[in-house]
């Protein structure tokens, strides 16, 4: 019972996190590519509840930041200009899920812009870029692992069920893919695809490359399951009744693999998100101005940015809660599919 609830808990956490990213238009205060050229590299504005006169405000507010006189990169808070944060405020137009037009945002300020996580070189809001960047990175990870698992499923089914030369060929191929360190494989696959492409094509390119990197491991797992499942009595019985190969695979054999695939998905998605970040970080992924977690970080390759603007490092941390969620989900799923793991251990101590 507890274990099942555990899976649900992690799913709930992940659903909330993904909800924020999915409704990026609403949860991000501004358009991610809208520039504010007068305010490059503005440091994050801190939300306050208590003002300089030590008066408590129920509505959080930020102070506008200004250049300290005589410097060109030192900012101070201008305490004469409080900007109260308003919630559910109309602002830039956006499309939710690409369908509904709306202009309401979770929060914002009345007249002036607020930058809770600072701005980048073009004065674009870092918070909005992180939230919108998550859409690209997470979707690439999600689609990539769906495709990987689909390939792995088909290959494993063919290889395990039909056996013979198909099994030999497919498994030798899988071994070749497993013989490479995965980042080298990622690089190699990326190297043989076009370099300069528009963001949309780049996105699908990455999804394809990711799917190509990881299919071998799930394929081997599925093959093992199919091999043992096809000798089970109920499968033999169904075959005796004249069930076709396709029917047997679809109805009786492949469902056996579903729990393993689910666990694999929870392991693969964060790995693929990381892979997307790596590619985009190195300039082989989704190009500017479209934000993704990887290309947001690529600014850090400039020494001056690394030294002076610490908030440019924040996109690296955006991944952490998602990683945590997926890790928790994966171990909860593993525990569910192997419920005897814990009992075996306690039995072992008795022996």
């Amino acid at each position, binding site marked *: 019972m507890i274990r099942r609830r555990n899976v649900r808990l992690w799913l709930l956490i992940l659903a909330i996190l993904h909800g924020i990213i999915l409704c990026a238009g609403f949860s991000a205060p501004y358009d991610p590519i809208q520039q504010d050229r007068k305010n490059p590299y503005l440091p994050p504005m801190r939300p306050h509840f208590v003002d300089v006169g030590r008066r408590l405000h129920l509505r959080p507010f930020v102070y506008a930041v200004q250049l300290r006189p005589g410097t060109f990169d030192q900012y101070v808070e201008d305490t004469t200009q409080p900007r109260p944060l308003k919630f559910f405020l109309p602002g830039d137009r956006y499309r939710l899920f690409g369908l509904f037009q709306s202009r309401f945002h979770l929060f914002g300020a009345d007249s002036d812009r607020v930058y809770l996580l600072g701005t980048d070189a073009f004065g674009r809001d870092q918070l909005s870029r992180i939230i919108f960047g998550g859409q690209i990175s997470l979707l690439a990870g999600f689609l990539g692992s769906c495709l990987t698992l689909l390939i792995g499923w088909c290959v494993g089914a063919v290889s395990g069920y039909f056996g013979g030369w198909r099994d030999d060929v497919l498994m030798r191929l899988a071994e070749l893919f497993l013989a490479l360190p995965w980042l080298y494989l990622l690089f190699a696959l990326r190297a043989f695809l076009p370099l300069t492409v528009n963001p949309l094509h780049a996105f699908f390119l990455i999804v394809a490359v990711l799917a190509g990197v990881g299919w071998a491991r799930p394929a081997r797992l599925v093959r093992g399951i199919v091999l043992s499942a096809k000798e089970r009595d109920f499968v033999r019985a169904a075959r005796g009744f004249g069930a076709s190969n396709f029917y047997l695979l679809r109805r009786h054999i492949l469902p056996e693999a579903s729990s393993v695939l689910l666990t694999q998905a929870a392991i693969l998605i964060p790995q693929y998100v990381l892979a997307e970040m790596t590619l985009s970080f190195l300039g082989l992924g989704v190009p500017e101005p479209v934000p993704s977690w990887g290309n947001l970080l690529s600014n*850090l390759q400039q020494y001056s940015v*690394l030294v002076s603007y610490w908030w440019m490092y924040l996109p690296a941390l955006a991944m952490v809660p998602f990683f945590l969620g997926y890790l928790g989900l994966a171990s909860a799923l593993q525990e569910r599919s192997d419920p005897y793991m814990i009992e075996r251990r306690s039995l072992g101590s008795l022996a």
Partner: protein
Amino acid sequence: MMRYLLRRLAHALLLIFGVSLLAFLFTTLAPGNYFDEMRLNPQIAPETLVALRAQYQLDRPLPLRYASWLNSVLHGQMGFSFAYNSPVAPLLLVRAKNTLLLTITATFLAWFIALPLGIWSAERLGRFPDRLISSATSVLLVIPDLALALGLLVLAVRTGWFPTGGMASVDFAALSPLHKIRDLAFHMTLPVAALVLSALPLLVRHVRAAVAEVLHAPFLLAADGQGIPRGTLLLRYVLPAAANPLLSLFGFSIGALLSGSLLIEVVMSWPGLGPFLLEAILARDIYIVIGGVLCSTIFLAAGNFLADILLYWIDPRIRTESAPR
């Protein structure tokens, strides 16, 4: 012994050959080549381009190109780099050495730290040290490699404790041998730390699980009853019994560290295969890409081979299995 090792060796060689074939197959799918950018240059005549392509044999069919590449591998060249205008092998060798230096150091260090931590954690299963180590590895596990590397870099830049790039100081050539080693170690600290930290959580967890499984075996209870000291027990009895899964993890960890070093080398500008490969991808210098990929396969295969030898040495079950009947 020889038969078992020869079989593993033949397997590894076949794998490397297969990867090279696969890499070549992919190059035919690749759109464009190194000379494509020259097409835009009005000062270069189309005939020159045709001649260049012919000179580098890019116009020949794939099987012939593969054959001539194999030939150049046998002559120790591994194809020809367009960008460097030189055979690939010597270029690759310099970088591969640096990558190996980084990866091997990190592998040993990671295992050196992970083994005692894992054993300690398994010995105190469920108690305070175990919980502390488990939560520490969980925290490390959820921090992405990229964030870790960048974080260490920020730290180094802010504090100035460590150099932030390259593998030698400006005056490296003038230093005495001892100082050279110190300088190198100094430059290696940051990338190795990033690699070890990224590999550590997985290793510690697996060591803990493997040792915990063995710790409850009846033969250990008997050995404990004999009054064998705890330290001897752990090192002489538990560790060899838990070695089998750990040695397959050893091969895996080499692959993971090679992957990790690719990224960390770029971030920390370590002159290894990482930046070299990236540059070659961006320039469409295909033979370097193939060479680099092949290099990594060879490293990984060598690591797995090493693990096989160690396994043979440690696990008697393998010895009896492969003994001639």
